[in-house]
């Protein structure tokens, strides 16, 4: 593995950890996990914005302190291309819009099993149907 690939792989793993923590802690912190904010961080890695100086954002939102998150698909891409330098790509951002990489999740099911999006990647398409509630 080339030196460049090692850097990409480490950055990708750090990004995946950041994404996972963001989802788990979303209800406990003010750090946004929506597509727009993550997308911004990914597309401008060399020049992270000083959020506290941006009048368009609430001052309560902390500026990102760590490396910007890298999409899960990019992690897979980097890992899969371990022996092929030509296939390393950093593409779509994680988010909830069409053409975004879908937010990973793990949730319990009524059957007692736990299900995650990641377990189907590469093998199946996934349809998520959010419904209001049972009554």
């Amino acid at each position, binding site marked *: 593995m080339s030196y460049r690939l090692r850097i990409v792989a480490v950055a990708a793993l750090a990004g995946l950890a950041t994404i996972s923590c963001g989802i788990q802690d979303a209800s406990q912190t003010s750090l946004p996990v929506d597509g727009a904010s993550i997308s911004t961080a990914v597309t401008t890695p060399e020049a992270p914005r000083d959020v506290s100086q941006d009048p368009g954002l609430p001052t309560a939102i902390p500026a990102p302190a760590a490396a910007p998150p890298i999409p899960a698909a990019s992690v897979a891409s980097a890992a899969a291309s371990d022996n092929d330098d030509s296939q390393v790509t950093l593409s779509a951002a994680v988010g909830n819009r069409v053409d975004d990489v879908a937010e990973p999740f793990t949730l319990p099911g009524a059957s007692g099993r736990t299900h995650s999006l990641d377990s189907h990647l590469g093998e199946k*398409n996934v*349809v*998520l149907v*959010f419904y209001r509630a*049972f009554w």
Partner: protein
Amino acid sequence: MPALEALETVVFAISTDDLSGAKAIASRVGISFPVLYDPAADVMEAYGVYDLLGDGLATASTFVIDKQGVIRWKYVARSISDRPSVSEVLEQLSELDG
């Protein structure tokens, strides 16, 4: 569901119900795919479909995600009764590559 198997697709239903609610709807409707519960609304918040209609619930919505994990189509209800048709979802799935 044969059509979904042919399209190499799995379906997850998700709501803010707790375990008993998830079991109830799976039993009542006879759902053959996994019914997941997200009472803290973390996942639906991440997908931007929580409480859009001001009812404190998931807004009815459907996301088609391809094998690479990319969202290829989505439909978010604009009212309580708004839903995409099954045929529309199947059509979107059939247009996915591979």
